[in-house]
């Protein structure tokens, strides 16, 4: 299997595209900054959100039971799935019982995590994703590359090509306005004909048993309000205690995600529509295990805003697909190894540990710390390659002994000058797509010492 760094190399072959990807995401990050800076209470909001999530995790079992009993009282059928297989089986059995073989689905990272589409299709159920970005990657037969912006890696010309093939738009048509209109017409007929709609969940309120779904397009609502059956899939970490907590989370979510003050629609589903059937599936799939890992449990606070991806220098220049997990970027790199340490051992290393993710996270997850922690765990568990293991060992020795660190630096600087090929060769992956600056005459420490001496 190719690891993250190999796949980023492939992504980096097209330099123009990488630059475009990088700049687009950075532009979104700047919009987030603008939105955050407009609220003097921003830091207070983040702190409150983090506290509420912390409290919820500390009382999660009770809240889950409370949520279930309220939802039942609201006329909703509640299902529990320990893993992806059970989740998919539950969905299929609801559809089979009602003789439904075509559904419409709005954005749900959980169903991606469970590979629901492939499972349903192999069981004769057709799935149409209704979020425009998700529809595009579905037509391209690709997974989403970003949790909020599923086709951020695609150029409009490529999307035009797909729509020409599947939706019959004119050849060469790449105007976003025209393409969106074509998707609107096509999906409208889907909404009007599907008897079951599947959605994700952004927040589930324990106090009332209601769920909240946030979209800009209105696709979740169009699907659900026209269907006989609504199935909502949620991870058990989506719980919040009270309805009024939504005030805090809704103020943070869209501002962090895209810089909007709120998503166009924040829909609260409490009871099924008259004559409608509503199912909620509560999914664990490794979450209770992550909850038990003290150093990583904070990752369950995530509200999936995507801000950590938009700001991440590695994500921006390697693309979501290089992570090979439903949730990419910094937070995905914490969640993935929980599910499969061997398969995703490369991800916690796909970071510069610059900490920018931690700074933007609306629920104050210490993302870069957790990535660092995962490295320790993975190395100790022998899940990493020998190069990485030795690299980590040498680095930690050097950091532990300052004198040795100084000497090694000096040696490195002279060696780079005398024998540059020692560093710049095919065996050193650092040089792929990179040039090294000329080594400085003196290290920062040496410079600093000299400055101090001059002053004294």
């Amino acid at each position, binding site marked *: 299997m190719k690891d993250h760094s190999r796949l980023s190399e492939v992504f980096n072959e097209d330099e123009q595209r990488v630059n475009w990807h990088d700049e687009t995401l950075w*532009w979104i990050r700047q919009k987030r900054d603008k939105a955050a800076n407009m609220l003097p209470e921003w830091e207070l909001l983040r702190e*409150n959100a983090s*506290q*509420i999530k*912390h409290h919820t*995790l*500390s*009382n999660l*079992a009770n809240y*889950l039971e409370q949520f279930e009993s309220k939802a039942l009282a*609201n006329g909703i059928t509640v*299902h*529990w799935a*320990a893993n992806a297989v059970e989740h998919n*089986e539950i969905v299929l059995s609801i559809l089979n019982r009602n003789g439904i073989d075509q559904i419409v689905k709005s954005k749900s990272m959980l169903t991606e995590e469970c590979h629901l589409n492939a499972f349903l299709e192999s069981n004769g159920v057709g799935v149409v994703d209704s*979020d*425009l*970005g998700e529809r595009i990657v579905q037509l391209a037969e690709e997974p989403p590359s970003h949790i909020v*912006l*599923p*086709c*951020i890696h695609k150029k*409009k010309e490529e*999307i035009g090509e797909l729509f020409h093939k599947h939706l019959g738009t004119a050849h060469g048509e790449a105007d976003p*306005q025209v*393409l969106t209109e074509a998707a*609107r017409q096509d999906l409208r007929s889907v909404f*009007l004909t599907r008897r079951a709609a599947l959605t994700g969940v952004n927040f589930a309120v324990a106090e009332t048993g209601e769920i909240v779904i946030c979209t800009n*397009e*209105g696709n979740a*609502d*169009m699907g659900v*309000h*026209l269907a006989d059956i609504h199935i909502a899939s949620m991870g*058990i970490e989506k719980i919040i205690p009270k*309805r*009024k907590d939504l*005030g*805090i989370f*809704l*103020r943070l979510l869209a501002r962090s995600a*895209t810089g909007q*003050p*709120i*998503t*166009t*629609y*924040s829909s*609260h*589903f*409490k009871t*099924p*529509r008259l004559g409608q059937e509503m199912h909620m599936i*509560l999914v*664990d799939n490794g979450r*209770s*295990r992550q*909850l*038990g890992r003290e150093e990583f*449990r904070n990752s369950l606070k995530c509200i999936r805003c995507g801000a950590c991806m938009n700001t991440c220098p590695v994500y921006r220049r390697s693309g979501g697909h290089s992570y090979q997990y439903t949730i990419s970027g910094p937070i995905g790199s914490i969640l993935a190894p929980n599910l499969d340490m061997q398969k995703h051992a490369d991800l916690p290393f796909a970071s510069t540990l610059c900490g920018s993710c931690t700074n933007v996270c609306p629920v104050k997850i210490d993302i870069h710390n957790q990535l660092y922690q995962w490295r320790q765990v993975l190395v100790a568990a022998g899940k990493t390659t020998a190069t990485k293991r030795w690299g980590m060992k040498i680095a930690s020795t050097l950091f532990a002994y300052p004198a040795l660190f100084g000497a090694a630096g000096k040696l490195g600087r002279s060696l780079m000058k005398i024998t540059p090929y020692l560093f710049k060769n095919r065996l050193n992956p650092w040089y792929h797509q990179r040039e090294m600056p000329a080594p400085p005459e003196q290290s920062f420490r040496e410079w600093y010492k000299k400055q101090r001496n001059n002053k004294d």
Partner: protein
Amino acid sequence: MTMANSRSKILEAVKLSQPAFSEIITANIPQSKENLPAKFAGASTNVGGKFIQLNTLEELKSYIAENFKRTGIILSDIVELSDFSVLEIKEMDPHSLANVELAILRANLAVAENGTCWLPEENAIQRVLPFITQHLIVVVSNDAFVPSMHQAYEIIDQDIYGYGVFIAGPSKTADIEQSLVLGAHGPRSMTICLIQELNNKEKR
């Protein structure tokens, strides 16, 4: 169902894994109550909405006549707009609303910081209506405005609804190269109309 014991398995695992109980410590966030309609207008425009102020519902009628196609289906449950009203839509099959051109609905709560209006099921008439209509007008009165989402939830905290939605402007997407397009699946336009002579209290 075969997953009958998954419930207890999950709850057991969560109980074992969850950290020691901690209280919520949250701080109060004060908000200024000044100039709310003006702030709302600005925020609403930023999210693609259109904000207008009229004195009476009679004026709204002429506004609609001037700005919207007469040929399409226009629906409203506002009594003063009875030219358009179709009172039995509450019971209609939602699919039969597919060709609605314009819906004029009443909101009792509008949030200044982000330009959203709150439409619980009763105000939406049918859950699908504010989404399936090509254009949406939401009528509000001067006392509908609150500064932020915190005050909005203080007001609806104890409300009983089966469904409710905060709506901020027309349906939109930027999924194709981040170019903003209005009218993704839902309304292509949203107009928020402040009617001076209206008073909220009558409906709340």
